[in-house]
């Protein structure tokens, strides 16, 4: 039996070390700490609750099954967000491959398949109802984030929602520091433009 530990008050690196020693409560503590940030990041990348949950689950399973590969000189959360981002980007790439045509996926053989795989252009425009909803800044900004390129989206989320420094984001996403700055600069610019109508 393992000695009793005050897991909620331990830093991530210590909890990860305990998980490396095969302590199940440490695994659960890591999930408890990061289930919301990881799910939120992935959800804002893929814009679908069920898919986001599957991808967040896949992220944790990958990370926890390879916890022995975690090196304490790096931030655990950076490692976790890196995997989450990769999982989300991979999913978006796969989805993009299967929806290259607005008339449905190339392998769609029946009318139902065409309907199911059709690229919904209406998603990007705003109906009157949507415009009304978008009057609320939170809702509008969620929409604006959804319209960003996936790389911009992960950078801006890590910067402003998770409060990471540019250097941490560069390390997490395996990008040069200059690229991260450019992405965040462009994302902010796009968001400002997208939210301009709220000021009018």
């Amino acid at each position, binding site marked *: 039996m393992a000695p009793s530990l005050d897991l909620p008050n331990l830093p991530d690196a210590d909890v990860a070390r305990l998980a490396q020693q095969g*302590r199940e409560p440490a695994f659960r503590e890591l999930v408890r700490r990061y*289930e919301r940030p990881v*799910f939120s990041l992935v959800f804002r990348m893929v814009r679908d609750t069920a898919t986001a949950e599957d991808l*967040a*689950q896949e992220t944790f399973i990958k990370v926890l099954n390879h916890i022995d590969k975690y090196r304490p000189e790096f931030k655990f959360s950076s490692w976790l967000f890196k995997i989450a981002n990769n999982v989300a980007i991979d999913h978006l790439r796969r989805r993009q491959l299967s929806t290259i045509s607005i008339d449905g996926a190339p392998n769609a053989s029946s009318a139902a398949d065409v309907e199911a795989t059709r690229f919904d252009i209406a998603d990007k425009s705003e109906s009157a109802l949507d415009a009304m909803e978008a009057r609320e800044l939170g809702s509008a900004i969620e929409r604006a984030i959804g319209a960003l390129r996936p790389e911009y989206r992960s950078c801006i989320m890590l910067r*402003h*929602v998770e409060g990471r420094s540019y250097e941490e984001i560069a390390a997490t996403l395996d990008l040069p520091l200059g690229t991260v700055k450019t992405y965040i600069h462009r994302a902010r610019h796009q968001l400002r433009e997208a*939210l301009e109508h709220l*000021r009018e």
Partner: protein
Amino acid sequence: MQHRHLLSNEIDLLLDGEAGFGVAPLRSHVDDCAECRARLDEARLVADALERLPHFAPRTGFSDRVMSQVQVVEPWHVAALDTARRFVPESRPLRALALAGAGAASVAISGSAVWIAFSADLSFQSASFVADRVRAALVSGVAQALETTLGSGAADAIRSSGSLALVGGALALVAAVGASAFGFRAIASAARQRGS
């Protein structure tokens, strides 16, 4: 004061709260330029809205669903340490007592091991000595018996031929004694049959 409006990357520097030699003139420009101040306020509005975005929660039981697919492996050295920890008492005096007991036990075990090793060596030496003496006595006894039975010439010849010949001679002697006993027994039984 700068005479041009700020570039968007300069607005970003102020937004990120960067400090340094190059940022001071930008700050002083913003203080004096209403247009740039408005742009910075607008950028701050977006950044603040982003920072206020909530974290979403997955469905209840997310942790259990994850853990059902995670293999928790306890390394052998951790398991061994845990097993050892189970025997360590909780209270301090008991722990000290257990430590003293363990120390005494380890000293006793070490002493016993040394004693057994030493005794084994002594026993081995004694057994070798006894075995040598027994062998020498046997050889001498057999040689004497051969000399008595076969004469000193034959005994010397056998002795000089080595221990194998000695053993052969001893076996021949035993066979001769056996044959003689059998012969005497046959004669005695024939005499008894004639008498009856």
